[in-house]
């Protein structure tokens, strides 16, 4: 799980923008690509024009760190398995079948003999092992992926087209990590003597996917072309062009003037475009889509569970009753978002949809606080505990987020109105992070990005409180720990998700966070695009096509 960050001056506010940045995922998260439909020759051709809000640093298949590079990789590289975008089940990609041992420690993949890289050479076990070895090489800067493979003992070649992953402990994500987290690269092309040589690679992109890398003109655009000899059903689009347009207003303008086919929108622009679309005089014709996607994650207000006053779950629940999530979503986010009650993606099987969010109810908050020992004993308007100490705390905020600033301001006033003394202090991100690491805050507001199926260990297990783990709100609950550990080792999805439902319930009762809302992805599409299907996992640009009469210029290579 990634902590969302970013400072920017964009209109949407950096927290929102960060969330939307990952929501600018114009393809899915890794390992979730779809098998392309079979296209007729008339459908083949045309150029899809998209944009990136910033340029990637590098496109290296293993060391690149930013989301933009991973979107490009999604066109060019493939993994061993992929998720069905609707049922979420695993389907073959480079591997045609697999076996998992009963103890979950050994996972064997059998590669599809038809699989080919773009240079025509077959995808073999050597390539998979090479990819794995390179990634785990400490001199290669692939920290991000390598951290997922920490518990992996080895990846061995068992046959010409068979590989075996061996893991140290049973972990339900081992299968996903083994099969879907590695972009398989050809050994022949990427072999190196000096690791730095590999680290410095940026534009050498040879994979087995349906598109080829054409060129990257820095500051201008990045172009991909169709792989005519792709080993499965080939794509319809002849070219995919990503332009680098940083200014959100310029992006929308380009879309409206027909220079872009598909863009991601911030909530403000969504509202504006909706008005434009409804206005018959404006004469615009485009499609707007709003959907929940796993990558968007959720925002939350974090309470420091280890120290008073937030060491009491009744106090934390009271605080949750003070947040009007509906108002936040309807007004501050223009109605875009869903209230959430737990740390999982609402569309996932881990999320217990039966748990309803606590309502905005200051009276109930007061009642709970009284139960916890906080009431106005001396009539001065502030709540005090039995020791006579006033209920006062400090909000630790990030200096760059307009959304956060608004929510904190509103919540502080709500607190004041029931007698809680709140002060607020803002820090820039790098200093703020040290507060998180030292657990030296009382209340803060942040967000996590999500995945399709996440492991709550990192954030919620009590072992992650010490050191600099991600359990920065010091949540410690024996039952939650037990559920997390058991679920990790449970390989049967049904049993595992039942455990996660119970875990979700524990969090709901304990309220270590006040979960606020989950963002929805907002997209605008040009009317000429065909084949656009909204899957459970979102949209996949690779499966789109453009009718002949709507293409610009000539067929094939023309824009």
């Amino acid at each position: 799980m990634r902590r969302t960050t970013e400072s920017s001056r964009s209109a949407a506010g950096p927290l929102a923008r960060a969330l939307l940045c990952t929501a600018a995922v114009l393809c899915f998260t890794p390992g979730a690509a779809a098998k392309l439909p079979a296209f007729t020759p008339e459908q083949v051709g045309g150029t899809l024009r998209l944009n990136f809000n910033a340029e990637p640093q590098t496109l290296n298949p293993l060391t690149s760190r930013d989301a933009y590079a991973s979107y490009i990789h999604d066109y060019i590289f493939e993994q061993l398995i992929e998720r069905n975008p609707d049922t979420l089940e695993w389907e073959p990609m480079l591997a045609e079948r697999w076996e998992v041992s009963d103890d979950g420690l050994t996972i064997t993949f059998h590669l599809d003999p038809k699989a080919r890289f773009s240079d025509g050479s077959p995808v073999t076990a050597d390539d998979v092992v090479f990819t794995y070895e390179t990634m785990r090489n400490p001199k290669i800067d692939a920290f991000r992926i390598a951290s997922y493979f920490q518990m992996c003992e080895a990846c061995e070649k068992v046959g010409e087209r068979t590989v075996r992953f061996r893991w140290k402990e049973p972990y339900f994500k081992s299968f996903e990590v083994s099969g879907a987290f590695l972009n398989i690269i050809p050994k022949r092309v990427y072999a190196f003597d000096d690791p730095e040589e590999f680290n410095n690679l940026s534009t050498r992109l040879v994979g087995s996917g349906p598109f080829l890398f054409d060129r990257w003109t820095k500051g201008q655009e990045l172009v991909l072309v169709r792989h005519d000899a792709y080993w499965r059903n080939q794509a319809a689009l002849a070219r995919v062009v990503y332009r680098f347009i940083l200014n959100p207003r310029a992006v929308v303008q380009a879309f409206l003037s027909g220079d872009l086919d598909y863009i991601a929108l911030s909530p403000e622009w969504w509202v504006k475009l909706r008005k434009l679309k409804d206005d018959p005089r404006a004469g615009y014709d485009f499609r707007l889509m709003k959907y929940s996607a796993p990558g968007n994650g959720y925002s939350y207000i974090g309470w420091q569970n280890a120290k008073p006053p937030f060491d009491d779950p009744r106090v934390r629940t009271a605080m949750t009753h003070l947040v009007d999530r509906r108002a936040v979503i309807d007004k501050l986010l223009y109605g875009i978002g869903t209230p959430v009650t737990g740390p999982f993606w609402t569309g996932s099987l881990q999320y217990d949809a039966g748990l309803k969010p606590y309502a905005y109810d200051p009276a109930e908050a007061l009642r709970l606080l009284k139960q916890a020992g906080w009431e106005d004993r001396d009539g001065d308007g502030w709540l005090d505990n039995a020791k006579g100490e006033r209920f006062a705390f400090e909000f630790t905020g990030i200096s760059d987020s307009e959304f956060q600033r608004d929510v904190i301001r509103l919540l502080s006033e709500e607190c004041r109105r029931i007698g809680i003394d709140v002060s607020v202090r803002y820090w820039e991100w790098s200093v703020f992070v040290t507060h998180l690491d030292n657990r030296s805050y009382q209340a803060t507001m942040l967000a996590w990005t999500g995945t399709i199926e996440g492991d709550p260990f990192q954030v919620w297990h009590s072992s992650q409180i010490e050191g600099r783990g991600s359990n920065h709100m010091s949540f410690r609950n024996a039952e939650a720990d037990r559920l997390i550990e058991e679920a990790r080792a449970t390989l049967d999805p049904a049993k595992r998700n039942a455990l996660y439902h119970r875990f979700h319930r524990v969090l709901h009762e304990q309220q270590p966070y006040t979960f606020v809302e989950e963002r929805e992805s907002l997209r605008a599409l040009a009317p000429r695009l065909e084949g656009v299907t909204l899957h459970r996992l979102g949209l996949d640009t690779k499966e789109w096509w453009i009718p002949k009469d709507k293409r610009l210029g000539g067929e094939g290579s023309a824009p």
Partner: protein
Amino acid sequence: MSEAEKRDDGAVLSGPPKSYGTIVWGQLRKRPSAMVSIAVIVLLGAVGVFAPLLGGDVPIRWVENGKVSWPVFHQMTNLEYVALAGFLLVLALPLTMRLFRRGGRGVGTSPFARAMGVHLLVWLLLAATLFLARAPDRAYKAYLDRRAQADGAWFPPIAYPRDPGFKELVENFYEAPSRHHPLGTGRIGDDVLIGIIYGTRTALSIGFVAVGISLAIGVGLGAASGYFGGWIDLVLMRVAEVFMLIPGLVLIIIILAVIPASFPPIWAVILVLGVTRWTGSFRLMRAEILRIRGEDYITAARALGIPTWRLLLRHAVPNGLAPILVGATFGIAGAVFLEASLAFLGLVQTASWGTMLNDGRQHLEYWWVWASAGAAIFVTVFVYNLLGEAIRDAIDPRLKI
């Protein structure tokens, strides 16, 4: 100081020399632009100082169960009282000056200085007493909600919470101007007019304190440079050059960007503005002192044994002060301007007009937010600019600027 005497035959004998300040003031009085500017500035000051009486959810007078209370005064902080007292004392200066003038003539300390001294003393005593003896009442008492239960209540003209809660967010999100909200409401249901009223405080405090700091530094260093001369002068001139080399905005941006965000932003802005804009008054003060030192009457006075510093204080400072005053007035306008620019660049988040303007920019269709803030900035800056021009013209015949 007596007025000029008119003799019976019509000749006018001028009385004892009028002080420089009186001459300038006389010039200013003749110009309508100056008087209007001063009036507006006083009005702005009044708005800032009396803000809780103009907008907010705390009533001025509250009668419940037969008991009369004045909640707004209980809730005003000590700082607000000190500012209020300061404002009133400054307004009262002309009266005190008149008292001193009637008391006696002569070339002792000017009545202005004496009046200032007295007022300053009173103000400091008041401030000390307040801060030591009083703690304001900050708790929330739902006066607006309980309005019906009171026997009598006088609310400020804009009776609306200063800080909105979720209820206000839901009911008053970006409302256009109406009877209840003369300038409409903003993104979190906050009343724009209240924002403007309280924004006056930010604008004026940034203006005055920042310029005050830069004046203190500039005049102090300039006097030192001119008085001591030698290598002190050399060093100080180089230092000033260093500050003058980097264009003001760039230097301010660099410093502000690296000040930790946890530092109270309003003080960050004030300090940065104060510390980077002292070179103007520095050069003026230094030039004036150097000029004076060359004058014959100074040499004569020194020959008589009068210490140099006293001469400089009596002659250089008052003369040099005039152009410095012009610079200061423009400086206040500039500070308000700069604060808006800094808010726009995202370097600082204060509760000010600049922030309102910047926030309002995102949604041009809710024009009342940015138009109000923009108008407020414009009026304030314009008025100070007018005043600066007027003072400059007033002293023009005497000094070349």
